[in-house]
């Protein structure tokens, strides 16, 4: 660590990346919690929002409206994949559901390949994505600060939704005991659709910053985020919202830390090390760092 300024930079980028990772993991976990589906096609929701940015961005609309429309696209696709592909296999084994989501993921990627382009395209992005500011001698990227703020706001908003609204309560209740949730009169399909909608919303928010960071969108753009979401949620705890958030932030600090301090040739093995950790976690502590407080009832 050279100086305070380096440390603050590290802190800001770790927190901002960690926040994004937390949102990625949450999008996966919120669906897994109630339907036991690990949605491989979650990355393609990020892709959809990315192409939304590209396509709507060509219009004269202000960028913020473009961003909102892109997020809406991700939500619509999330609801659509639930209705068309996942609802019919809801009672099948987790393995079947996982294979289905793998197929949905391939399908959407190749649709983008066929109808848009295999080549990366650069969507219109506002200048804040490249600018930096200097505050008391410390240089930070504006986008990092915004990402940090947005992720924290999103996490708090989600927490309020899950604690205060009856739909949010139903989501948590359904993760505890799905059958009983139906028996208190909650419409099961609605709850699951809500989970998918939130997943799409999170994917959309993530897409803004992820694509803002890399500056381009291509059919496989969602793959890296979905891998990150896998790692973060397995490490943090697949059935725990808190775990997903924790896992996301841990991974954020870890990636930025490794990038900063690890020699380049070791860094090449970063993904391999991360996924080796995933395997070890699954074996040693399959419930993740944050154990669900209570063993789940059999459904």
């Amino acid at each position, binding site marked *: 660590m050279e100086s305070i300024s380096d440390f603050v930079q590290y802190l800001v980028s770790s927190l901002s990346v960690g926040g994004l990772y937390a949102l990625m993991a949450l999008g996966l976990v919120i669906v897994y919690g109630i339907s036991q589906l690990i949605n491989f096609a979650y990355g393609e929701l990020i892709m959809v929002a990315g192409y939304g940015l590209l396509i709507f961005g060509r219009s004269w609309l202000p960028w913020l409206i473009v961003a909102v429309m892109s997020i809406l696209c991700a939500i619509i696709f999330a609801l659509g994949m639930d209705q068309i592909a996942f609802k019919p296999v809801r009672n099948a084994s987790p393995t079947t559901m996982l294979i289905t989501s793998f197929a949905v993921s391939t399908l959407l990627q190749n649709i983008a390949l066929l109808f848009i382009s295999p080549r990366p395209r650069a969507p219109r992005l506002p200048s804040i994505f490249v600018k930096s500011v200097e505050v008391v001698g410390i240089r930070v990227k504006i986008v990092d600060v915004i990402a940090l703020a947005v992720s924290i706001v999103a996490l708090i908003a989600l927490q309020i939704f899950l*604690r205060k609204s*009856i739909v949010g*309560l*139903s989501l*948590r*209740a359904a*993760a*505890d*005991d799905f*059958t*009983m*949730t*139906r*028996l*208190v*009169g*909650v*419409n099961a399909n609605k709850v699951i659709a809500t989970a998918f909608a939130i997943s799409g919303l999170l994917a959309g928010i993530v897409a803004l910053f992820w694509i803002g960071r890399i500056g381009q969108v291509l059919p496989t753009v969602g793959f890296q985020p979905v891998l990150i979401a896998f790692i973060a949620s397995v490490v943090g705890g697949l059935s725990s919202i808190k775990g997903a958030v924790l896992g996301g932030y841990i991974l954020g600090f870890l990636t930025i830390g490794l990038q900063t301090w690890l020699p380049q040739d070791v860094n090449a093995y970063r993904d391999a090390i991360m996924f080796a950790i995933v395997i070890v976690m699954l074996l040693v502590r399959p419930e993740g760092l944050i154990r*669900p*407080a*209570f063993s789940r*009832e059999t459904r």
Partner: protein
Amino acid sequence: MTLLYLSKLNVFYGANHAVRDLDLQIEEGEIVGLIGANGAGKSTTMMSIMGAVKPRSGAVVFDGRNITGMAPEDVLKLGIAPVMEGRRIFQSLTVGENLRMGAATVADKDQVAKDIERWCILFPILKERYDRPAGNLSGGQQQMVAVARALMSRPRVLLMDEPSLGLAPLIVADIFKLIAELRSLGMTVLLVEQNVRMTLNIADRAYLLNLGRVEFSGTPDQIRAEADIERTYLGGGQTSAPAASPATAS
């Protein structure tokens, strides 16, 4: 007035004829016991009332309306709330959140707030543990949460499946006292129980089930008077009961 009745109800689990030609009726304001050994068809009967199991034939009529084969959500909205075996509270939700989930079908927020207050007075433990995860509560306390949660939808009939299961005898006595108290508040209760003695202490009438059939029905006194029944089904009957049916397993 007859609030709920079943007529000639037949339920199958695959080839297993779990409930046979069952007739049953519950008057408003009554506690009716449904007793019998493990696998007698008690839970299956309850599940058919609440719509969790579809009967092959026969009818479930509630308040003059045929509700046979209706979805559980709709049955609940009509005013029949279940308290499931094993309590099935939402463990990671707080006690308060469990109560709010019980009123998931109620749109009127004031009513929900008023009801929560009301049940917190009747069950002081709920108030005490209001913001704690319900999974941290003891078995007896969880049963209170389960009952209060069911009451939150303002049902006219409460279906209770084995509320005494797995609880210490002292707690069981408390639970039964509570059920009797509910009647004084005007609640109608169908009580499915293996604990025959306790059930007969509080019930107005009871049905004795054996192998899916009503073996005997009447007032607690009438049932107690049947010494034979006592010996056959209520005494050693439980240990020599037929293998558990899917009804009790599910």
